[in-house]
């Protein structure tokens, strides 16, 4: 018999980074399909093309620049790419999209040393770059074009989004424009970025990840809960100027941000307490930007800002080590 050696433990749970990333992709699939139903083939092209481009970039960097000859893609680049596609208007030009992917993968991730070493969520870095560089394209949303597969999204008439309209013309005008907003935004039948519109599908995807024990609930609950409570305060103070709290958590990419972007393990705290703080902080910043800041929506900035605080949060939310109690009994 050939004796094999290796350190204990000799058995391992059947889990890998690739499997985790695959699960995230599975969780995002319902939303990805909905986006194609709403905006046609061009959406499908953006999704598949971005994932392929991101994987290519990462492969190229790892093999050519970092000389990792045994590098095998772990699908994390695809997750970044798909999340970025979900975060931009469906009619965005392919080259704008490609530049966003390039920034997300290279600046957002690889220059820090690849997966696990990036301080900021790469998809949000990419989106921020696109937001700043292509401000018009990033707020030009095509109308929902339900089940017209062959009509490209960039040919569809454009429209405002709920938060944008409210910022420009007030909530009353927006409510008139988006009839039945709360319910429609829960289902996803509102204009917005490609994959963020259906709260329902995003929640289903998240529950799948939670069931698979890939993510924990603290950040989404804290983030969405805080946004709900603070929005309620604004709404109570002046119902004609602000959305009701239920609508507030359905729009502006909050669900996508809270469920899938803020929960990125690399860029969020490790302990339960840290996760609560992270989620609450993101909620506060989001509402403040939405209602007091200059931008109509604040999820992107809120998460990026909280990302920056993660090392500090981790430092101050350590759990008490077993056996370091002061009193026993």
């Amino acid at each position, binding site marked *: *018999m*050939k*004796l*094999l*050696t*290796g*350190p*204990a*433990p*000799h*058995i*391992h*749970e059947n*889990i*890998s*980074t690739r*499997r*985790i990333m695959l699960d995230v992709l599975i969780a995002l699939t319902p939303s990805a399909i909905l986006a194609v139903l709403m905006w046609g083939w061009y959406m499908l092209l953006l999704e598949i093309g971005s994932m392929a481009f991101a994987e290519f970039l990462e492969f190229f960097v790892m093999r050519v620049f970092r000389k990792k000859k*045994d590098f095998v893609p*772990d699908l*994390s680049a695809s997750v970044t790419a798909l999340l970025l596609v979900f975060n931009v208007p469906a009619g965005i030009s392919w080259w704008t999209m490609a530049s966003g992917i390039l920034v997300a993968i290279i600046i957002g991730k690889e220059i820090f*040393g*690849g*997966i*696990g*070493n990036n301080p900021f969520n790469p998809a949000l870095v990419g989106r921020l770059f696109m937001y700043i560089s292509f401000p018009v394209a990033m707020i030009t949303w095509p109308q929902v074009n339900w089940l017209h597969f062959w009509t490209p999204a960039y040919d569809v008439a454009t429209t405002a989004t709920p938060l944008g309209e409210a910022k420009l013309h007030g909530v009353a005008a927006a409510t008139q424009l988006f009839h039945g907003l709360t319910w429609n935004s829960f289902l996803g039948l509102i204009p917005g970025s490609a994959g963020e519109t259906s709260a329902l599908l995003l929640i289903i995807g998240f529950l799948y990840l939670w069931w698979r024990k*890939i993510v*924990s609930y603290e950040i989404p609950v804290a983030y969405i809960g805080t946004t709900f409570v603070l929005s309620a305060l604004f709404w109570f103070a002046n119902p004609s100027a602000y959305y009701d709290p239920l609508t507030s958590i359905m729009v502006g990419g909050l669900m996508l941000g809270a469920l899938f972007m803020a929960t990125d*393990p*690399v860029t969020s705290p*490790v*302990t339960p307490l840290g996760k609560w703080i992270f989620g609450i902080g993101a909620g506060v910043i989001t509402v403040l930007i939405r209602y007091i800041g200059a931008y109509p929506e604040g999820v992107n900035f809120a998460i990026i800002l909280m990302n920056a605080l993660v090392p500090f949060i*981790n430092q101050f939310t*350590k*759990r*008490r*080590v*077993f*056996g*370091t*109690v002061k009193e*026993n*009994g």
Partner: protein
Amino acid sequence: MLVWRFKGGVHPPTKKLAKDSSIENLKASKRYSLFVAQNSGNPPKLLVQAGSEVKTGQKIAEADGFVSVPLHSPVTGKVVEIKKEKHPVTGRPADVVVIERTGEDEWVKLSAKPYTEYTPDEIKKRVAEAGIVGLGGATFPTHVKLSPSKKVDTVILNGAECEPYLTIDQRMMVEHPDEICKGGVAIAKAVGAAKIFVGIEENKPDAIESMKKAGSAFGIEVVALPTKYPQGSEKHLIYAITKKQVPSGGLPMDVGVVVDNVSTARAIYRALEFGEPLIERGLTLTGEGVKNQKNVIARIGTPVSDLLDYAEVSVESARVILGGPMTGIALESLEIGISKGTSGITVLPEGIVKKPAETNCIRCYRCVEACPTNLEPYLLYKMFKKKMFNEMKEEHLMDCIECGSCAYVCPANIDHVKAFKTAKLVVRTLGRR
């Protein structure tokens, strides 16, 4: 009874393949090879040389200081060689006594009388003379545990056996509950404790029932524990039953508790009642790599190869592990003999043990969640890679119990435990300077 669930831990498949096979006595081997260093603390000093004739139970090495125990010959025979061999635990060359069996057992026993007639001091003395160490695997000299410098009111017998595959403690509790209970009573008498518990994971209902039946006559309380690894860790077992946390860097006696493995309790009873020194132990022969799933009693020093012949290896390539799959040590040679700390030999085929190369940590927090000691393994490992040993110490490296839960759940295939063992050695060495 209320049981306190520790935070963290993991649920590897328990795979108690040998749980229903009765304990068998292994037939004698031709040669026995005994590491002189079998106990933690000081290794004993050798009393024999090549050519010495020895009898079964004869002392062949004597204790060196208080935290040390003597070693006894497992058979009647002749010392043929004293050589150096790589010690599987330390990885360094260590003295090995090779004894060739020449015939039937001619016993040299210690004096004997009913176990109840020993005074506390006599019990401690006898346990030391008999060379008894913690049979759960830690091999800490038991008489030291029985001489606490603080008031002890509770004895806990550890029958958790949370390591997957291993079943010897379970079988001992099913087949020899009386001897275990009597050993427990002796331990309690030695330390002056009033209360005796037995902690058993609830996936061993036969052992629970058997111990309950036997224990009632002695006022011993059996506690069914949640099946969760590492429930059998001394500190977590104490917490489960008493809710007390052994202070960081402290010992069970700091919270008034002494913990001994159930097999250790049995060995104590036999040393008292029959005057038997510790020359044999029970162990499990198991794993998908062997045909016969067995629980056996084998003499200390029995070559691993003989045990594997008995269990019949059925695969081409495998890890042969001293102990269980979570904390055991993969052997590099099958010619070494089992020692006092060998609770099992687990043979795991390549398909089960192989794992892909390490990738980057993605801070998925699974290790943080799994750590039963509330450490942050991902952070410790990051520090380890930067050789930040002092920082690791501040992050409570020394509280790590090396249970392997972090490495078990890691999606990046990081060998945390290997790194932490190295780091602990470094910290200890630096501290000594």
